[in-house]
Structure formats: structure tokens, C-alpha cells
């Protein structure tokens, strides 16, 4: 594999344009390859329950992380516009994670998929390990753009895209709400969402993008595409195949609990009663 993503900073004695080999390749290249990360999570409509061993996942409906669907959609739209010529989808999870590849990524338009298969569906790899695995995959497939959902709705960490970009020493564009690829395909002008407004950045490729709801409206897979997805190439790998042997978590979960429940409320019959309660009982106005 080309040594694009070394994970180490270039030594300072190299010429100023240390990406010369990359740039040369990119000038010769007319189309880009996108890597899209997808995670199998408990469906967002499910009301979760905390059991003796943490959140109950057995028999609970799972689906592709909603923000990852935005990432898939962004890649597919770029492929339709002939900006990207190949989309590789990747998931890191137990056996059942293959569902988000066949049922979502491949069915929605990704060309091939990689399943980094963990032994159990219950194993939750921490984001740093996920990022290390993605780094290896990105290097192997020679991705120009890596698109990940901004956060997984189960752990809500919101870290993996930033971790991956840091490991790769690649530019990061998080919470992207619009993307405009430059004509020379060497950079992307993006708008991203900050807490109090928007920010425009120019992102040189290769780079990591994290996608948000407002980037696009994910399509639904059509039946013909679901059938086609069954024939698309899906490769299985293990963490060991990627050279990752130490999976000891840096952060251990000691306990999972439900948040304290609020005391039951009361129904008020009129605005007058509401105002009275707010003034005299809750004392907040």
C-alpha cells in the first residue's frame, strides 16, 4: 500500500511540499475513492432499558447509525455526479453488523464492503480502537475521502472522525452541512455547523469528514438495489488481519445505570392555574 497515511508527522528535513508524491498522483487521477464508515446501533426509535449487564440489546431492533446514512448518501451523490468513482463501506462489529453493509451501505449504492468482524455482537470497541482499524482500512483501500457519521447514537462519544484524522495526520472537517468539491478534485469547500453559526473551510484531500443531518436526505433502498447488494463484494477481516492485536480498552465501563427519574408532574387546567403554580409552587417566574 502507498505510504500516504503514516500516522507520524513528516520529519522537518523533508522538502516543504512533503505531499509531493500524493499531489502528483492526484493530478493524474480523475476520480476519487470514498471510504464510508457504518455502525450497527440500536434503532433510534427504541426506548432502551438498562439491565443487569448494561443496556439490553437482545431482541432489540438495530439499524445503521442515522448519521452514517448521511455519510453513505453523501458518497452516493458524489458517485452519481461522477466525482467519486468507487465507494467502499466498512463496519467494525460482531456477526450481525453485516446487516448494515448488505441492508444499508451496499443497497444504497456503495460498491464494495469490508466487515471487520468481532467475535461478539456485544463487544463495543472504544473509538480509539475503531479509529486505528479505520486508519488501516483507509490505507489499504487508498481512500481519498473518509466519511463518517458525526457520532454514534449509542455511545454518543462524537470522537471517531477526529481520532482518525489525528492518527492519519489528515485534515478533518466535522459536522459538515454542505460539501463542494473543487474542479481539480484536490480539495473540498465545506460549510460546517458550530454552536452559534456556520463556518466555511477549504479542506485539502485526503481528509476525514463527519456528516450531520443537514448535509442531505438519505434515500431508502429500493428492492432491486437490495437484491443487487447481495452480489456486491463483501470482504471479512479480523482486527488481527489489520495488525491490531492489543484490544485492551483504555477506558473501562464500571457501571451503567438509568438516570434518576423525574417526579411525576401534574396537569393544570388553565393558563391561570399554570401561572399560579409557576409563581407560587415552582417559584421560577
Amino acid at each position, binding site marked *: 500500500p502507498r505510504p500516504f497515511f503514516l500516522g507520524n*508527522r513528516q520529519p522537518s528535513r523533508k522538502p516543504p511540499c512533503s505531499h509531493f508524491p500524493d499531489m502528483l498522483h492526484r493530478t493524474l487521477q480523475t476520480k476519487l475513492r470514498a471510504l464510508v464508515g457504518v455502525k450497527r446501533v*440500536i434503532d433510534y426509535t427504541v*426506548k*432502551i432499558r438498562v439491565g443487569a449487564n*448494561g*443496556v439490553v440489546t437482545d431482541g432489540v431492533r438495530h439499524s445503521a447509525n442515522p*448519521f452514517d446514512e448521511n455519510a453513505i448518501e453523501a458518497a452516493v451523490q458524489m458517485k452519481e455526479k461522477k466525482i467519486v468513482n468507487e465507494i467502499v463501506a466498512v463496519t467494525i462489529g460482531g456477526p450481525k453488523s453485516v446487516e448494515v453493509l448488505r441492508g444499508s451501505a451496499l443497497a444504497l449504492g456503495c460498491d464494495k464492503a469490508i466487515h471487520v468482524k468481532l467475535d461478539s455482537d456485544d463487544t463495543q470497541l472504544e*473509538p*480509539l480502537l475503531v*479509529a486505528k482499524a479505520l486508519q488501516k482500512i483507509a490505507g489499504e483501500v487508498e481512500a481519498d475521502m473518509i466519511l463518517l457519521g458525526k457520532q454514534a*447514537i*449509542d455511545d*454518543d*462519544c*462524537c*470522537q471517531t472522525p*477526529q*481520532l482518525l*484524522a*489525528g492518527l492519519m495526520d489528515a*485534515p*478533518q472537517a466535522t*459536522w459538515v452541512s454542505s460539501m463542494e468539491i473543487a474542479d481539480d478534485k484536490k480539495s473540498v*469547500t465545506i460549510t460546517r*455547523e*458550530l*454552536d*452559534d*453559526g*456556520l*463556518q*466555511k*473551510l*477549504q*479542506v485539502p484531500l485526503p*481528509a476525514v469528514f463527519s456528516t*450531520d*443531518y*443537514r448535509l442531505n436526505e438519505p434515500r431508502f433502498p429500493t428492492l432491486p438495489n437490495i437484491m443487487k447488494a447481495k452480489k456486491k463484494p463483501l470482504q471479512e477481516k479480523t482486527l488481527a488481519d489489520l495488525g491490531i492485536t492489543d484490544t485492551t480498552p*483504555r*477506558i*473501562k*465501563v*464500571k*457501571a*451503567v445505570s438509568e*438516570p434518576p427519574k*423525574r*417526579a411525576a*408532574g*401534574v*396537569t*393544570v387546567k*388553565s*393558563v391561570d392555574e399554570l*401561572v399560579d403554580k*409557576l409563581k407560587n409552587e*415552582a417559584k*421560577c*417566574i
Partner: protein
Amino acid sequence: DLLNLPRLTKQTHPQTTSIVMFRLGRQLLANPLVLVESARGNPTPATLSAITAARKFGDVTALVAGTGCGDVAAKIAKFEGVTKVLTVDDDNYTHGVAEKNAALVKAVQDANKFSHIVASHGAWGKGIIPRAAALSDCAPVSDVLEIKDDKTFVRPTYAGNALSEVVADVDPVIHMTIRPTSFDKATEGGSDAAVEAFDASGVKFGASCTWLEDIVEVSDKPELTTARVVVSGGRGLKNGDNFKLLYDLADKIGNCAVGATRAVVDAGYVPYDMQVGQTGKVVAPDLYIAAGLSGAIQHLAGMKDSKTIVAINNDADAPIFTVADYGLVQDLFEAVPELQQKL
């Protein structure tokens, strides 16, 4: 924390004595760094919450980087718990471009060996902290709600419906973001901390984004995450124009911000920065008035820590009533104007 340690006397069990001495020693050894985010020349309120959180580990060093950081540094130096401020007056860091800021944080960490690196869990902090952690091959902890000790934290998962108590005892430094609404803002103390420039000339950048522009609407209206009262609207408002009812109510209440659900943001009724929810803003005001919104799980995640919750909805079965302290089943187009009038 020092006040919680048992008193040491001649009668104290030797094991207790060693535990107390060890914890005192650890407290003295723990030295946290807080990354200071600033807006329009002032440290953000969320940063002040990060200082309160970091103080639990020890005396705080604050890092302020960007052009004109001297002003912000002088202000931060006044806050209780901050004993040192490091400044880097360099335009590379002004706009929060994560590649550059994370490289700086790594350089500061390599030179100082802090025990914890803390920022608030907002767009700025979330972009920088994980990237800086990766540069140091560390696993970050996000959105901390509670600090139990130097290594043990509570953080929300599943839209806040499962609280996870985690222990981070492997990495030499803990990179973390904290939830601002879980920590009171630091207050100004008696003395000013020392401010010193950090020599960042050795910081090398790899390929980075180029900042083009910020599109921020500066308004004099109260800010969503810090207002004492929040009034939010959902699909029941039917269109963006009707949000005027809520803006008017907010004006009447005073120190009141207006929020919205993801549904109405997606529908284009209001700008996205009004979204309250799991992946929008998390608010915990004294009073939260939910008008015409059903109360989806993802919305509740952003407001269920409010002290008092009022729901106004003409659908008695709306889930919002399960978290509301006071529920009014009435058409909001009648109730909201009447509420404004009677307050």
C-alpha cells in the same frame, strides 16, 4: 475534596493514614490543563464550567491561543482555581482549526505533562480534544456529567437514557470534554494568576484546513445554553412565522431564549442553532416551556435536566407530558398568547 478526607490523628488507623497521604499526594500531583475557548474577546461561559470541572483535579493551568489572546488571558487569570495562564498569540489558532490547535495542545502537553486536558463539550472543544488525544495515543472521554475522582467519570449514552460510569486509569493523561450544564461557572477570585507566553515556534502542522469565514449572527438575545428560561417550539407551531408567538413570550419573560426541535429545524422553520436535543444543544434552565412539541427521545435528551418543565400541547398523549412538571392540554395558539398576557 480535601475537606472530605478523614482527619489524621494519633488514633487514625495506619492504613487510613497512608490512604489520606496518598490521596493528598495525588491531588498535589494532578495538574489539569483547560483549553480556553473565547468569543468576541471573552472566555465562553462553557469554558468557565470547564474550569470548575478541572479544579476537582488540582490547580488549573489555562491555555489561550489565537490573535489577541492577551485580553482573554487577563480575564481568565482572574478566575478562582486558575493559577497559571499560557498564551500563544498566533493567528494559526484563532478560528479553532482543529489540526493546528490539536498540534499545539500536543506540544503544550509534551512540555508540561498535565494530568488532565479539559475543554467544554461544544463544537470547538469536540473538534480539538479527540484529535489531540490521538496525537498522544490516548483515549478521550466525552461529555462528562460528573467527576467522581481523578480517574472516574459519569457520562451519558443513548441520548442520556443510560449513564455510564467509566474509569480511565491506563493513559498517562486524560483528555476530556465536560457538559457545561453539569458544572457551575467559575467565579472570579481574589488574585490574578501568572500569565506567560508559551513558545509555540516548534509546532509543526501537517495538512490542515484553511479557514475561509465564520457566518455567525451576533444577537443581543439571551443564549440558549445559558438563559434562565427556555421556550421551545415543535411542529405544532406549523410554520416559522408562528414562532413569533414564542419570541414574544420570551421577551415578556426576560432572560429567556427560544429553542426548537429537530423536526422544525429540518423543515426550515428556524435556524439549526436553535435545535435542542441529543445532537443539538443541551440545556438545563430553571424553566423549560415546551410548546407544540411531542417530546421525542432525542429532544428530551437535550432538556430533561431542566429544573421545571412545562408542556403545552393539545395532544394529551404526547410523550412530553411524561417529563413535564406541569402539563397544559390546550391549543398553544390560545395558551401561549394568554400566558404572555398574564405573566
